[in-house]
């Protein structure tokens, strides 16, 4: 079984992001970038499927500018067999990314595509679902457990109030939730080996996809700063403030 895993380059989760002075975007100057944590979970799951003898090949794909190859190399160091970079500049909305991934799916014909449920920068939570629609493949989103049984894929999903188990026919799409697994660290020997693994580069034209954007980002601003708290004299004053200022009780 061939498994395709999508990985996205995002600002490292430890970094406190700042808006640019002119409010046009997030400031990415000298900011540490990393693989999206949900995508890392997707890579880990694919590698585990390979280690279990279920998957035969794991391909890591990323869409974006050239620096995305760093994240593909990270995925290769974590255990993916080869990489595909779809080189595209500028802001890419989920629909464009889904179309480009659909182009890769058509080329590679994987049995399983694993994506993070969302990226920690855009928080869109759309790409996997859009890819499912475009590729006409069944999807199991927010997966906390997956198991391949014959030509079926059982997916346990985390839904409001409990767990839902789905059985998908392959080929299928899965998006990962945080509890699916705990990603490993790339070992130093594997980091060395990753540099020698195959990495193919495609352009959107190679895949027959137009990267025309349908969404414009108008403004980016930081959240309002929290006001300093105050000390109240007594319970009566607290109740008064909750009732008349915060208006959280009546």
């Amino acid at each position, binding site marked *: 079984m061939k498994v395709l895993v999508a990985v996205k380059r995002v600002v490292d989760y430890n970094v406190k992001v700042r808006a640019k002075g002119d409010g046009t975007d997030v400031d990415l100057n000298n900011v540490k970038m990393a693989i999206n944590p949900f995508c890392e979970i997707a890579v880990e799951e694919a590698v585990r499927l390979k280690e279990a003898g279920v998957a035969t090949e794991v391909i890591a794909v990323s869409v974006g500018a050239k620096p995305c190859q760093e994240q593909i190399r990270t995925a290769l160091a974590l255990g993916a067999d080869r990489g595909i970079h779809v080189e595209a500049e500028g802001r890419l909305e989920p629909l464009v990314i889904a179309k480009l991934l659909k182009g890769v799916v058509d080329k590679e014909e994987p049995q399983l595509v694993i994506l993070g449920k969302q990226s920690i920068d855009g928080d869109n939570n759309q790409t996997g679902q859009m890819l499912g629609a475009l590729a006409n493949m069944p999807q199991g989103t927010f997966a906390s457990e997956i198991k391949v049984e014959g030509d079926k894929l059982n997916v346990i999903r985390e839904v409001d109030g409990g767990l839902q188990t789905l059985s998908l026919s392959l080929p299928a799409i899965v998006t990962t939730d945080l509890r699916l697994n705990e990603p490993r660290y790339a*070992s130093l020997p594997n980091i060395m080996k990753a540099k020698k693994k195959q990495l193919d580069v495609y352009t959107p034209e190679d895949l027959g996809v137009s990267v025309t954007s349908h969404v414009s980002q108008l403004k980016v601003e930081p959240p309002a700063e929290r006001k300093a708290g105050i000390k109240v004299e007594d319970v009566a004053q607290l109740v008064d403030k909750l009732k008349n200022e915060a208006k959280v009780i009546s």
Partner: protein
Amino acid sequence: MDFTFNEDQLLFQESVREFLGNEITPERLRAAWDTDTGRDPALWTQLAELGLAGLTVPEEHGGLGMNALDFVLLAQECGYVALAEPLVNHALAGVPLLQDLGGALAEAWLPKAATGEARIIAALEQNLLVEDAHVADLLLLERAGQWYALTQGEFSLQHNASVDPSRRLFTVTVNDAVQPVASGDQARRLRLATLNRGALGCAAQALGLAQRMVDMSVLYTSDRQQFGKPIGSFQAVKHHLANVAVRLEYAKAPVHRAAYAVAEDAAGAGQAVSQAKLMACEAAGLAAKNSIQVHGAMGYTWEVDLHIFMKKAWALANTWGDAGFHKQQVAGHIFADDAVLGAGATFQ
């Protein structure tokens, strides 16, 4: 001339930093203090799985075949988290010494060192108390001008208390029946090479410790308020930390130069290492002193993590040769009749 670290070395540093930063918290260090060995077998396994135990083991024995220059940035990261496991001694002193000893001993132990199955600990005669002897699978010990390769059972240990609860120190007595594996000129050569590697490991860790103490202090002084402002905004506080940052920055180049000299087995390696250890440990010492100052009374307390890094910095300053010893080494180089000094000799 390109003095920068290459892409692989920086990538390794970043990977190791991420791992150590996530896994080695002060809470985990404190938890190990209460155990019998003071060491964390699960952590050693993780370090080995990451490939760190085999980094300096030759490729033919299952390692990565790297050298002191490749390891120096990683040793800095080990210092940054005050790693208690004997990784720096193993990779930077023990494994290269084992390689130098060669023969059946190296053939038998290097593959185990590569996988982390065996911890190789090196100790010089001047290290009267041997750290981590209790967890050494192979202890390479210099005594009376001879080297011994000892497995558990071939020596006895007497525990010595340390001010740093992360350190486990022992007086080692070699069993009478054990024969040395090197003596005479060979033992002296091994001694010099091992001293350089061990002292380099101390220097690199001291850089990491100094950086950690500065970072902790910057964080604390940005948060702690007095007169309605963070105390870090006051000159009398921030200058303390700026002085450490300057000292630390000036210490980095000598340490990296020493790593290059050790990796290349250069003629001036001893002098370069002594200079590096002096400067790095002075930076770490100043970092400890000034960090206590800017933390105020909090800095003295057991609950604040600062003391973990401070005590390790103090300990490193006096192992693998103290300041007096290394100053004499540098003086010996400068005042030698055939000393080649001056700008033209900087890169020789």
